[in-house]
């Protein structure tokens, strides 16, 4: 069982690497959906021995919300602003891949320093959550299109969710609230930002925001 949990966590990190390295917005969103669905399986594997109703609820909420509703919303946003691919990256593809590889190494170093109060079922959970968070940051920093930044934010959220799963037994409601609240804030804020940028400038390049003058 632990091997399956390891496999899923490694798969999640690899999918994060694919999101970071892909330029097409549609591909990014699709891979994000798959990644979130796989992440939703983690609580089932982690708490397989003492399964409770709210754990199933949290997993299902995560799977449905991140795996289906968010990608649907993002695809709607792509159609709305008719953007297909990231034209101008701040950090190039090769550099992004190498940086995310470094982030994986860094997360393992960081995780080896941390002492976690509750017993963890796999020593890969914390490193992979850290690397997802850093990959999300890389997307936020390295991309200029608002949609890729939304995906970056959501990947970051996935990392936080993975970390929060560890606390699921201690404070289940807080984790659940965190998932829902973060996601909807992300969706609403970014939805407004995306549509406003595209209304004003006819594209979604956030670089243009920094040239605004009053």
């Amino acid at each position: 069982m632990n091997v399956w949990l390891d496999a899923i966590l490694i798969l999640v990190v690899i999918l994060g690497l694919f999101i970071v390295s892909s330029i097409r917005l549609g591909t990014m969103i699709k891979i994000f959906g798959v990644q979130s669905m796989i992440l939703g399986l983690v609580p089932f594997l982690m708490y397989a021995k003492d399964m409770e109703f709210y754990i199933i609820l949290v997993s299902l909420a995560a799977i449905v919300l991140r795996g289906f509703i968010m990608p649907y919303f993002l695809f709607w946003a792509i159609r709305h602003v008719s953007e297909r691919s990231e034209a101008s990256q701040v950090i190039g593809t090769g550099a992004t891949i190498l940086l995310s590889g470094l982030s994986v190494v860094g997360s393992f170093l960081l995780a080896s320093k941390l002492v976690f109060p509750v017993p963890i079922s796999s020593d890969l959970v914390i490193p992979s959550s850290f690397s997802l968070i850093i990959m999300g940051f890389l997307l936020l920093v390295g991309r200029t299109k608002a949609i890729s930044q939304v995906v970056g934010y959501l990947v970051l959220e996935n990392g936080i969710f993975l970390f929060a799963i560890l606390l699921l037994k201690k404070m289940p409601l807080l984790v659940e609230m965190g998932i829902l609240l973060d996601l909807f804030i992300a969706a609403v804020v970014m939805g407004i930002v995306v549509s406003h940028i595209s209304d004003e400038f006819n594209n979604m390049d956030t670089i243009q925001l920094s040239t605004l003058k009053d």
Partner: protein
Amino acid sequence: MNVILLLHITVLFVFPPFLLGFIGKTKAFFAGRIGPPLLQPYFDLYKLMRKASVYSLTANWIFKAAPMVSTAAILAAGILMPIASLKPPVQFWGDIILFVYLFAFARFVIVLAALDTGSSFEGMGASREATFGCLSEITLFLNLTILALLSRSLSLSGIFPGGLSSSWSLVGPVLILVVVSLFLILLVENSRIPIDDPDTHLELTMIHEVMVLDHSGVDLAYIFYGKAVKLFIFGSMVVSLIFTFKTHNLWIDTFFFILEMIGLAVLIGIVESTMARLRLNKVPYLLFSALMFSIIGFIIILARTI
């Protein structure tokens, strides 16, 4: 002991061009053609062996020696590699380093020969080969390091026949990463399709083919044969990683090993038929991902074992 040695050498020397035949058959099947016979690579080799070589006026002895030297280096690497449950003829502590550098040496002499022709076109191919080579070499090394850490052995004969059979249940996911990474390296090193098309002669796209454009006759036969053996050795690495179960009967193991290799050749053929060649500036990204796969695997193994 002598039977093992003979069988190892025979499989290593005779079987490799067969793989190319299977790849060709698979690609022909996907294209809806009958395709060349399975033994076509042998016919090609025979044809090339009978032909005389033509040498450029600027080329000196390096150009003439390179095909033989590189093929010899690749065959020497093959002698270090265990096949099925056959112990390799040569084995010693730390031979994985020699193994990797024999391939590097084979590439080096071919690159030298390409530069020796004096044609800028071949120099371009040499530059590409050297660029991708230094990315794939580090990945190959990292993968071998992971395997060496897992099997607690710095010798190929300690890693491959049985050293990893217990690792699949413990660190299976990491081994999957290594297998994927090695498969990508196999495609890169042998200039198969997502990286380089072995069949085209378009100047914009070629990597390996452009370097050997000036070679002809017996020299070309050596290079062709060396490439087949290289594919065989890399393939046998992937195959022995996946199928760790052995019956410990010499003949049955070898038979199954050859079947597995044919399966791998069919898989390569499927990849070649279903994928388009990557644009040249996208190839480093593929190599980077292969490198990342092995780095992630390496870090996990380090965190687990130390």
